[in-house]
């Protein structure tokens, strides 16, 4: 049984009374435990929408979605909040750290919301801050650290609850290539220690770190690439080729 299952997911945004935008038409997707999956597609293809539905921040118009056998399509506001806290971790493109807390308290936030004990928080942060190399950042404010450092704090915040699934929406979008590489190696590392990751990205380079890459177009999963045993540069080449094919299709169809 896979960790995450999406069946016939459709999402329609209604603007005004008449104008309907079909963001997702028919998405079928399953993710196994321990997988690292990348999602690619053009701007406006519906990647964020898909991620938001998985994150229970939004509900599908139709279709079913289960995580760990829990049906997510019809959770109440209260239940979905609790579900997010307990089962999901988020990393955002714009980090979304809170200026009101120092970095340590930013990382503690999900545990505080789950009413964890302070001793427990301290226990959890120790190995995490060592692995992410953020020990000396913890007592500073988010406004006092660099973008790459912020993203590492955000990742620590996402991982401190030991979530079933880590969701990342363009986690390297605001970073230079050096910092991006560090973050992706980090993802690779935590994935190797068992963490399931679903990552939306625009960069083929970033996607090449994943074990599988999905291409979304016209509201469906248009293509899927498995890395298998290839090395990363081979896989990267494959991804770039697929993207090119995707774009040329568009040119011919126009």
């Amino acid at each position: 049984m896979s960790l995450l299952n999406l069946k016939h997911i459709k999402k329609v945004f209604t603007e005004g009374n008449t104008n309907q935008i079909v963001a997702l038409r028919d998405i079928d997707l399953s993710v196994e435990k321990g997988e690292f999956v990348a999602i690619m597609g053009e701007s406006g293809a519906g990647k964020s929408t898909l991620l938001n539905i998985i994150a229970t921040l939004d509900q599908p118009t139709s279709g079913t979605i289960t995580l760990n056998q829990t049906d997510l399509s019809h959770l109440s506001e209260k239940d979905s909040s609790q579900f997010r806290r307990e089962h999901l971790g988020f990393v955002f493109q714009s980090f979304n750290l809170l200026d009101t807390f120092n970095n340590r308290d930013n990382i503690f936030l999900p545990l505080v919301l789950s009413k964890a004990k302070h001793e427990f928080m301290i226990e959890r942060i120790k190995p995490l801050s060592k692995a992410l190399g953020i020990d000396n950042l913890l007592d500073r404010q988010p406004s006092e650290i660099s973008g790459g450092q912020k993203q590492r704090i955000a990742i620590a915040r996402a991982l401190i609850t030991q979530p079933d699934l880590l969701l990342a929406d363009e986690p390297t979008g605001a970073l230079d290539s050096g910092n991006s590489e560090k973050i992706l190696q980090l993802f690779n590392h935590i994935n190797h220690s068992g963490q399931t990751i679903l990552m939306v990205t625009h960069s083929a380079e970033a996607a090449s770190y994943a074990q599988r890459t999905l291409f979304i177009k016209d509201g469906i999963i248009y293509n899927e690439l498995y890395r298998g045993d290839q090395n990363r540069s081979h896989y990267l080449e494959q991804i770039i080729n697929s993207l090119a094919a995707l774009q040329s299709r568009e040119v011919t169809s126009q």
Partner: protein
Amino acid sequence: MIQFKLAYHHLVKNKNQSLPFIFSNTIWVAVVYIFLAMLYDTNLKNISFGAIAVALMQLGLGFVILVSGLAIIYAEQTLSKQRTKELGLYSMLGLNKHNLRQVIGIENLLFYAISTGLGLIIGITFSKLSVMSLRVLLNFEHLHQTLTIKPIAIAAIIFAIIFLLLTLYDFWGLRHINPITLWHKASKAETVPKGHTFLAITGLIVLIMGYYISISSRASLSAFLQMMVAIMLVVAGTYLIFIIGSIVFLKLLKQNENYYYKPKNFIAVANMLFRMKQNGAGLATISLLCTATLVSIIASVSLVAGQNNLLNLWSQRDIQIVSTSPINLVQNEQITQFASKTNISLQSRRQMTVTMPTNGELKNNYFKANNSLKTEVAISSLDLQQYNHIEGTHYHLADDEILLYSPDNTYQGKEIIIHGHKYKVKPVTSFNTSFVYNHSTYKPIFIIAKSQAIAQKINPTPVLYVTSFNTVGTKSACKQFGEKLPNLLNADPASITSRFVIKDLFGSLFGGFLFIGVLISLVMICATAMIIYYKQVSEGYSDKANYAIMRQLGLSQQETRKAINSQVLTVFLLPIVGAVINLAFALPVLKNVLSVFSMYNINILISVSFICIALLITIYMLIYWATTAVYKQIIVS
């Protein structure tokens, strides 16, 4: 001009912050204008005791200008955080320092023009409407109001100065600009002020000095300057204490890990610490406004409630004639004839002779005659036979025993020493024909001795003849009788007291004070409500993004509400507590003022204070409840 466009653009784009800021400025302009209009556009000076009313209004004006200046400067800090970020962007795009100053100047000018314009319109409308309706409600026809340019101009100038200072302060903030630091400043948490222990101690000292000056200065017009200084010190002290105090308080909460790391406290404490100075300043402003509301309403209601006290002190009979020679037969005849002419009948006539009061002070049961600033009482004496006759009592006294009547039983001693003789005191609570000689402000004390000889020994002064009676007839007839009597007998008006005449006089006299008091407290409570509203709205918009992120991380709506409640409730009571403490030190001043009018009655003052505090707390909670709903609305929407 590009600078104008940028300033305008910024004002409009950040309307979530700039509108509440304009809103609060408008309130301050309106409040200041209302005070000015009362001073310059009314006949306040000319009504009785107008000079005191004018002095009090001037104190009030000084107070609101001070508080509004501080409040505006603090409110602008939130706004300028956002602005700083944009200025950083502009300077990256190539605007130089001079251009940035122009942008700031233009934006502040816009704020000034809009706030002052709106504030004046609201102020004029409010003062017109309230003077009109209060005149009807309180049945007080003596106050008139016109509309002149003077208060408008003065208000405009006062706020021009405040905004000028504000602009200079903003320029100061630009002094070492560097685009990057400007950009980062916006997301920086406020830091604990440097030397905060020193500041806290300074605040405490300043506050105590203010309290001390206000308590120790005697209430009189000459103490005006002292009172103004006291007010300034208390305002400064309150701000310092609230800012530093709330920071220390929040830091302590944060250090308590078991408290801090709970969902609702975690968010609330962090939010408040993030804008700790602004938070403290806002609380101080609210506290000072509450204080002003309390003081003005308690003072005016006490005056009105105390007026019966004064009336009874002056005379418990309808007519009381005090003279140095007895009323002769001719005068007696004139009185009777005039009574029948005005269609009233005279009843229960009483006559007594007492010794003329000697002024002095009472200390440790020891009476010392003097006429100085310390003089408090006026002692006169009579013999037991007269007292028993008037009161219908059957007291017996030994040579060294006396009965003592002091209004409101202010004399508590078991004995009294006068001219070296010690007398045992039996207090009596009733003396129907007590009076205040020449309506002086000293408290009368009547000593009833066994015989006339002892009465003379106690107070060796010439005797006064006191004739009193009640009048029965229509109210207007009784009043007319009282008004004409001094003329008829060719006597000094102060020697003849008519309750009907005095009651009318007091009505118009203290009605004026009540009027002003109610008006000021109305203005103050409205300002309090508006400032609390402003605080919640501006904080709501600055917290909105944070709550949105936390919702993504799994904060449910219910938990959001809990966090908001905790944030509001943690500090909600502090302003009221501060206001009550301030009030405790304002009450002695009030007592002095009331004493000048011989209207000080501890019971009245305390009960009025309690009622007003309870009322204020109720209104305050309603305001908080309503504005918290607005805050939640902003966060959740």
